[in-house]
């Protein structure tokens, strides 16, 4: 093996290749031993031929560059090199690893791929390289080499017959199969993208489609390699680069949209999905995905309902068996819209939601989710007994569902079966020991049944649990996408179970209110020393809710000093939350400091005009301060927002009594009694939104 001139290099390479190819064709006779020997020989020839072929390609390129620089060219562009390898050499390159694979030696094939790919790229072998990069990735991703995998060790002996290899300082050398498959695919992506055709004109159509197909092949493999490890950010970046050559290609658009959802960029996902729906007019699942996005993350129930309706329309013409789901999603949309509208419209939305859930169940009688939502809808509409029956069916269909159990407990409490409700919650907590929502219900039930002492214990447990679950996230910046690690599962816990911004607060959350709070706290941080706590804000918000719960419990235990401390803790997290201000007002009420209490409740209502509890208390404060007219109008306002709240009616009754309107007062009291029989311990809307 000595250094050969260019011409003989090619000749020698080709002769090795021809010899190997001939060997394959000629049958080696019956002897098994002979056959094996022949195979080893052939393989060796193929390997020498492919090494030489790569070397030849490199030498050719080198020579062309030197000839250009020595003669000098006036063109600023490097001349295009159109030489390709001869077909025989190309075949030899292909055959070497394939032969090993056919013989069932994936690891040896892997080594062969590595040797070929670590040779410095020459333009002539570009297409083969791309193909090999994909094949190498495929080989690893299939899991056939799983246990025998050894990381590449690049210690090639230097020989005049071996191609030049990549070598640079600080080179990345993969240490395991995940690293290698990702690396190979990233390199492949860079190569595939370089050769895509952007022009849409007809003459380039074939070239464009071919390049597009090669590129999507790389992307599909990349999807497989990343998704399992939760590395969606990497994938999403790649798809973003792919957009420029994927005009009107639905596959890449859809994958990009999906990857945007998985990386949490919901607004962008919505935009891309609109395009995907246009490109794939027969796929109802796209509409459903967007609908869920709108409900769950974007707080756009109206748009979500529209998309669900569109999905239904598609299902009628191109059925994929998702019709039941469409009705369910329409129902959820109506239910969410009912939360945020005036009383008159609310009835309409509730009726629509009910109808949709019933239709969903007609199509899919065994769907626990539809049963659950029907139960929830009936509960919201005050039909407790019917609701109980449906929740029971939902539990028969799936007994491990925290939302259904949560709803069951609330329903039982509305039926005044508080002891049973507590039993349900305690049983549910055995299955879901980390569910703060259920603990919250438990604390309230205990407060109602056994007084503050027991509820206090639960409240303290919640605080401890919060510490266990979220402290790790807040102190260090653990990546949220670590799919397999425990932090991720916690993260999932609070995205799925705590998805509602105020999920553990007593009123349905109001997007407007939290926006106001956010804006106010920004102002506050700019003019005072207050700075928001680091880490995910939702986790802090939960902690605040726990402090407020503790404050409420201490209030019933007649411990104003502790109440003050709890409020202090909550204030340090979110000083401008209307929940905190409301609690402060309650403390002033307790101390009979009417003027301060009035100010607090007025502030709370200013932030969230829909906050029923503040309105109720404000009415009472006015009542105690003697301004009965104001009290009446405030309470009537509260009744308008939620006519099913017995405290409002009771307070209104008291005020009217003070005004001397005894008949109206007794009517109000009667309404209060009536409404109270169907009132749960916490509003039904406090059950977090669920899709599973």
């Amino acid at each position, binding site marked *: 093996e000595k250094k050969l001139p260019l011409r003989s290099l090619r000749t020698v390479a080709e002769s090795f290749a021809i010899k190997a190819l001939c060997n394959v064709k000629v049958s080696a006779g019956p002897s098994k031993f002979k056959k094996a020997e022949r195979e080893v020989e052939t393989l060796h020839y193929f390997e020498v031929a492919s090494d030489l072929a790569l070397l030849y390609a490199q030498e050719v390129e080198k020579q062309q560059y030197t000839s250009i620089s020595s003669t000098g060219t006036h063109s600023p562009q490097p001349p295009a090199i159109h030489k390709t390898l001869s077909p025989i050499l190309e075949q030899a390159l292909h055959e070497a690893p394939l032969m090993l694979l056919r013989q069932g030696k994936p690891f040896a094939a892997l080594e062969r791929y590595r040797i070929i790919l670590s040779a410095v790229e020459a333009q002539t072998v570009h297409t083969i390289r791309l193909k090999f990069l994909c094949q190498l990735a495929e080989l690893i991703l299939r899991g056939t080499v799983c246990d025998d995998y050894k990381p590449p060790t690049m210690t090639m002996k230097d020989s005049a017959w071996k191609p030049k290899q990549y070598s640079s300082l600080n080179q990345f050398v993969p240490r395991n199969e995940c690293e290698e498959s990702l690396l190979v695919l990233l390199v492949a992506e860079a190569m595939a993208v370089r050769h895509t055709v952007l022009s849409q004109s007809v003459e380039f159509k074939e070239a464009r489609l071919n390049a597009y197909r090669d590129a999507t092949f790389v992307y599909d493999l990349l999807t497989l390699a990343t998704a399992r490890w939760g590395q969606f950010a990497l994938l999403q970046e790649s798809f973003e680069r792919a957009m420029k050559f994927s005009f009107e290609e639905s596959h890449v658009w859809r994958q990009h949209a999906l990857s945007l959802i998985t990386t949490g960029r919901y607004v962008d996902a919505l935009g891309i999905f609109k395009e995907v729906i246009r490109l794939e007019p027969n796929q109802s699942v796209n509409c459903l995905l967007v609908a869920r996005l709108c409900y769950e993350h974007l707080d756009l129930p109206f748009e979500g309902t529209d998309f669900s309706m569109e999905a239904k329309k598609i299902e009628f013409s191109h059925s994929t068996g998702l019709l039941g789901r469409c009705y369910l999603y329409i129902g959820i949309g109506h239910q969410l819209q009912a939360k945020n509208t005036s009383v008159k419209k609310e009835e309409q939305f509730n009726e629509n939601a009910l109808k949709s859930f019933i239709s969903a169940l007609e199509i899919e009688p065994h769907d626990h989710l539809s049963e659950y939502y029907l139960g929830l809808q009936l509960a919201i509409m005050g039909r407790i007994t019917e609701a109980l029956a449906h929740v029971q069916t939902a539990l028969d269909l799936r007994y491990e569902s925290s939302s259904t159990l949560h709803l069951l407990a609330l329903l039982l409490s509305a039926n005044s079966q508080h002891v049973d409700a507590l039993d349900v919650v305690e049983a549910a907590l055995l299955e879901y020991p980390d569910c703060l929502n259920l603990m919250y219900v438990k604390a309230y039930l205990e407060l109602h049944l056994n007084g503050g002492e027991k509820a206090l214990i639960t409240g303290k447990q919640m605080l401890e649990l919060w510490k266990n679950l979220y402290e790790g996230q807040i102190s260090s910046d653990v990546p949220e996408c670590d799919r*397999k690690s425990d932090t991720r599962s916690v993260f999932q816990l609070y995205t799925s179970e705590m998805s509602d911004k105020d999920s553990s607060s007593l009123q349905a959350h109001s997007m407007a209110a939290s926006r106001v709070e956010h804006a106010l706290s920004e102002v506050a941080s700019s003019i005072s020393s207050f700075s928001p706590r680091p880490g995910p804000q939702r986790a802090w918000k939960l902690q605040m809710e726990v402090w407020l719960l503790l404050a409420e419990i201490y209030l019933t235990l007649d411990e104003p000093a502790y109440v003050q401390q709890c409020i202090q803790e909550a204030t340090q997290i979110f000083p401008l939350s209307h929940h905190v201000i409301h609690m402060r007002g309650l403390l002033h009420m307790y101390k009979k400091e009417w003027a301060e209490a009035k100010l607090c409740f007025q502030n709370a209502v200013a932030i969230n005009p829909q906050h029923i509890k503040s309105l109720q208390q404000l009415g009472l404060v006015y009542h105690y301060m003697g301004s009965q007219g104001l009290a009446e109008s405030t309470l009537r306002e509260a009744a308008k927002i939620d006519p099913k709240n017995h405290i409002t009616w009771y307070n209104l009754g008291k005020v009217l009594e003070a005004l001397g309107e005894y008949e109206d007062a007794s009517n109000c009291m009667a309404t209060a009694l009536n409404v109270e029989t169907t009132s749960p311990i916490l509003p039904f809307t406090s059950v977090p939104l669920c899709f599973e």
Partner: protein
Amino acid sequence: MADVLILDWLEEYESLTESEIHTYSTEQEQNYEVMKALYAFLEDPNKSKVENFLDRVCQQLFSFYRSGEQNLKYFTMQYIPSLVLLNLANTKGFPSVGTLLLSIYNLEVVDNKGQSHIISFRVPSIAQSSIYHDSSNLEPAFIAENALRRWEECNSKLVNWGPLPQVENLNAQNRQRVVTALMFLYNQHIGKIFVDCLEYGCRTISRLVSQGFASSGSSRASVDSDSSYNSISHRLIVSSPLLLEFLHVIYHCVVRGVNESTHTFHEVTRRGIYECYPDVLLVSHAIQNLFHRSPSVPVAAP
């Protein structure tokens, strides 16, 4: 018939002395009859009349797993999908299955030194030259901010599997996490599992994702209560990470030409669509697209 085979298998192992286990383990690999009998048995353990049969089987599978013999470990591992199905379908019904799964899980989350078992890797950055490319030849679009940031984090920010917490008992909150971890382990060693056994695995996965849904036709409507399904076969909970592991199993199976694997693929995809899981859809679209191309790498003979 099958019961007898399994009984013999149980008794044979019990009668072994410690020195014989190694030879025994090499034979187990060829023990197709018993393997099949066990699959059939695990499909419906209630059919068998032998007392405590499932308990004994589970016990033996566990002693196989912890025997220290790699072959015996693989032998148990191949039943993970079946065991997962049994546990998900009947969370309270077969306590020994739950115990077995939990024991395997707890064994696997720590390594032999008692430290947490972590699989971690670096995310390569295209901006850093590697053994396969030279970053100076790249187009500028690839050396964007993100690629450079990733290069910087390459050695400090690892992608991890684990550390997973020890679990004392299975409940609704941790069940999916535990079975997903077990399926992940199954996937790690899937290359060692025989094609016939993979077929059982695929069938199990099909059942797991489609139980409680109408099986025939393209319609995904639920079954009527008076059809052949009885009320017991309610739909099983499958989280999206679990479906992702299933998809990897199926990808491997299709490549190796396992019967029914494409059918299973469609079942899993349908479930992913039904549940609207974006990550599952992402992967199943990718796999579907890959299948449309003829395989570029031939399959190694098993």
